């Protein structure tokens, strides 16, 4: 068997790629993870670390609630790395009618999914955060939202996945997706190496745009759950 073959080839070693590798290895599937730069180079190390459920695209909320209840609380113990998870609550502030309408809309969406989110006005906001600016007139408060350290979380997933036998290759730039028997199975890198898997998984996040995909119609486009969903879907592919 070729050494560059695995059940799943994952492209991108951010938190999405590393966690995909970790959960695949837990299920006993082999995987090779290709990364152009280093582990957690892109969005995974350039974010505020909010593990929040509110204010997301509706398609993400269910996943975010699941993660908050079942993944994040025990993640430090599971990975053996302190991911600095604190369920400190999340306060989204506004100061005009447009913001108020936006917050009310968020609360409506949150209620639909059984997520507790309250509207706070005036002094109620200062009770939660005494240092908030006087300009703030309305706020949405989600007590179960949290923060975590994105750097250690990403590297923690990487560390555990590597311990479990996932193969990580950094400095491999994916230049092309190739087909075998009519299905996307191959990943060709700029060094000319071909990696072949039964499935391909794109975890490119913000770096998805420049990757040229031979024929868009052969892929079912999905949106990565680790990044915020935008109304205009980014170019991302997956046939998992």
């Amino acid at each position, binding site marked *: 068997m070729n050494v560059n073959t695995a059940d799943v080839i994952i492209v991108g070693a951010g938190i999405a790629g590393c966690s995909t590798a970790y959960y695949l290895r837990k299920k006993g599937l082999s995987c090779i993870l290709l990364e*152009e*730069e*280093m*582990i*957690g180079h892109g969005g995974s*190390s350039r974010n505020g670390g909010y593990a929040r459920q509110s204010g997301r695209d509706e398609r993400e909320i269910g996943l975010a609630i699941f993660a908050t209840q079942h993944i994040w609380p025990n993640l430090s113990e599971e990975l053996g*790395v302190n991911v600095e998870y604190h369920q400190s609550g999340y306060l989204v502030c506004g100061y005009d009618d447009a913001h108020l309408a936006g917050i009310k809309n968020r609360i409506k969406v949150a209620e639909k999914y059984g997520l507790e989110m309250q509207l706070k006005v005036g002094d109620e906001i200062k009770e939660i955060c005494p240092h908030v600016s006087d300009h703030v007139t309305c706020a949405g408060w989600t007590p179960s939202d949290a923060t975590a350290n994105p*750097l*250690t979380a990403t*590297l923690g997933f*990487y*560390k555990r996945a*590597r*311990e479990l036998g996932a*193969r*990580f*290759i*950094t*400095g*491999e*730039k994916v230049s092309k997706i190739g087909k075998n028997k009519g299905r996307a199975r191959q990943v060709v890198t*700029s*060094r000319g190496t071909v990696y072949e898997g039964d499935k391909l998984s794109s975890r490119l996040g913000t770096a998805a745009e420049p990757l040229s995909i031979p024929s868009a119609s052969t892929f079912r486009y999905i949106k990565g759950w680790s990044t915020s969903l935008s109304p205009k879907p980014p170019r991302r592919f997956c046939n998992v």
Partner: protein
Amino acid sequence: MSEYQDRSADIGKFIVQPDDDLIICRCEEITKGEIRQAVHLGMWTMTEVKRFLRPCMGLCQGQTCSKHVKNIIARELGINPSKLVELSVRPPVRPIEMHIFGNEVETK
């Protein structure tokens, strides 16, 4: 694009050394042993070690320890230190007290 590295390549086992208790990063109190251990856990670049353990993230921003950290990683990987990419330097290069920022006057 960074250099090709197969992170599953064998770099040997972690062997305890007598000076593993030596503090390398004084600001964040990270020892030589901890840095060496991190390399064996897969942190093969300076940035990954920094993000994993926080050396070079304290008050001196790596001015004291970044060279030592680099040498320890390189020795553990068995490569030349010049192969390792330096950490990004982010201003202010020297720490500035908050009251200096606080006195900032807005000009139009």
